[in-house]
């Protein structure tokens, strides 16, 4: 297990390095440079003053050196300063992180809570009307854009307290009020993911039910319930962990859109506002942080999977 973990961690380093380069270049390759961005078009300066500012910003150096400077600061937790508020970027992002995390976690809980049981039922009743209904429903769930589902839910529940927009309450301050606000965002984001889990669990369970050891268990006269619960489900559900890994990207990207629809002050909305104001250090910080979160989630998923399925560790 230690070897496996070490291997996974080592494999992660080049990816994280690449991610940091992409995020760095994303902003450095903008037309114009940070000085022009900072000044906008309103301020007239002599070329000498501009050069002096460039030196102060450290952007008169060659690109690779700039990267080294930048990544050195990032690793120390210095993500730069907002061009609008002149405040350090990282604390502002971190203050909004819990909201985004809460939406993704709630959406994941809803998706697993709906997707797994429905998928199991569909597999056990394969070929029945219920199975067909679930399959069609699953395809529909995959096809509806989450932001449209959000808008439609708001429309249908317009007079309900759970559809109140614009008054965010923290989870710690008032858990009930907070969950009331978070319900619709989490449902909007979770439904299509529920469809993904449902389809996966259905096919995974069907495959396991066709395996020899399940036939053996049946042949020796075990109750169908015991065969399913003890032999089939365990093996069918372990791979669900990997699906969580793939779909973490959907959740983390989707929360950006959903926060915008419900006017929730999360990290995604911070980034969207920053894009509107051309405040690139904030955009850069959010993108870097979310990509980092995504990579780490996948590491956690791999570790979890190795713990749940010993075969992975020895591969």
């Amino acid at each position: 297990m230690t070897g496996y973990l070490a291997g996974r961690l080592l494999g992660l380093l080049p990816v994280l390095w690449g991610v940091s380069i992409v995020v760095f270049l994303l902003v450095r390759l903008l037309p114009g440079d940070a000085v022009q961005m900072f000044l906008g078009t309103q301020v007239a300066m002599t070329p000498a003053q501009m050069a002096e500012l460039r030196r102060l910003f450290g952007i008169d150096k060659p690109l690779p050196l700039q990267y080294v400077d930048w990544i050195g600061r990032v690793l120390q937790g210095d993500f730069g300063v907002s061009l609008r508020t002149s405040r350090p970027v990282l604390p502002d992002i971190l203050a909004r992180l819990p909201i985004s995390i809460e939406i993704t976690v709630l959406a994941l809980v809803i998706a697993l809570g709906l997707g797994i049981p429905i998928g199991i039922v569909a597999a056990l009743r394969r070929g029945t009307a219920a199975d067909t209904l679930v399959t069609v429903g699953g395809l529909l769930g995959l096809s509806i854009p989450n932001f449209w589902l959000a808008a439609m839910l708001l429309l249908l529940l317009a007079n309900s307290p759970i559809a109140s927009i614009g008054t965010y309450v923290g989870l710690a301050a008032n858990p009930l009020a907070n969950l009331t606000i978070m319900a619709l965002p989490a449902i909007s984001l979770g439904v299509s993911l529920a469809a993904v889990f449902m389809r996966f669990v259905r096919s995974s369970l069907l495959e396991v039910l066709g395996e020899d050891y399940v036939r053996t268990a049946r042949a020796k006269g075990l109750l169908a319930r015991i065969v399913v619960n003890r032999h089939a489900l365990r093996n069918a559900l372990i791979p669900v962990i990997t699906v969580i890994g793939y779909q973490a990207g959907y959740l983390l990207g989707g929360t950006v859109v959903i926060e915008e629809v419900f006017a929730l002050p999360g990290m995604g909305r911070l980034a969207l506002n920053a894009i509107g104001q051309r405040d690139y250090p904030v955009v850069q910080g959010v993108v870097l942080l979310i990509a980092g979160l995504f990579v780490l989630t996948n590491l956690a998923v791999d570790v979890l999977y190795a713990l749940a399925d010993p075969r992975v560790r020895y591969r």
Partner: protein
Amino acid sequence: MSTAPAPKPALAAARRGRATGGAATRRRPSRVRALARTPTAVAGSLIVAAYLVAAAGAPLFAPADPAAMAPTALLARPGAGHPFGTDQFGRDILSRLLYGSRVSLGVSFASVALALGAGGTIGVVSGYYGGALDSVLMRSMDVVFAFPAVLLAIAIMAVAGTTPPVLVAAIGIVYTPQFARVTRGSVLQARGIEYVEAARAQGAGVPRILLHHIVPNILAPIIVQTSLSLSFAILTESALSFLGLGTQPPTPSWGNMLAEARRFMTMAPWTAVFPGAAISLIVLGFNLLGDGLRDVLDPRLRL
């Protein structure tokens, strides 16, 4: 969003004995018949075909000029003159949806073509040559894959500007790694087949081996991936346009129509209902088609 693998196990078991190889061209007629017998594939093809006809014939089908404003009919209910109602400027929503389908479908097809071209090439080169080149290429794909799709597209749009070519490039880049992975995996499999080795032993050049022996063998999973990617591309394009980072008004696209509808939604629900339904239906079409194609072309395929 990437779809979870949904193989049909019984079908897979039934066909497992079949050899991987064989010229795709010879089997094509039977595959077309098999597709015609698969309800999901038929339903999906019909939906997609209907949309393509609607987009191509938008000027014929549209009851009005999509840009024509009618101050006397602002937010008019769906009715005789305007089957889907009008928006806040009195523009006919059906006409805007029809013309918007050209934009939304055009961007999606172009970006998937880009992803297919770039990812397919990377995958073929990576899989065929292997070694250090393979490592470098696949690690770079891992890096692109390390960004949530919508987020990377948002970041590219934010930096490079919201023009149509950038939109196509942004969505194309985001979905390139999936094609690269699927292609590379298939090439690795095909490379080991005996007659490919035979061709190599006969002294066939690399381009000939790739084009005549490898590519025909790896088409099935790539076709399936293309259909599924089209559904993701449409969702991504509409999400970006919804956020104001994709297709810019006044050019209609399903996503920006929804964005504009948000403010008037409670007064005029039809402004939001129809664009979203238009997106959902075509995405459903590509998902159905993708599922059907997978069942017929390659039951063992896992994404």
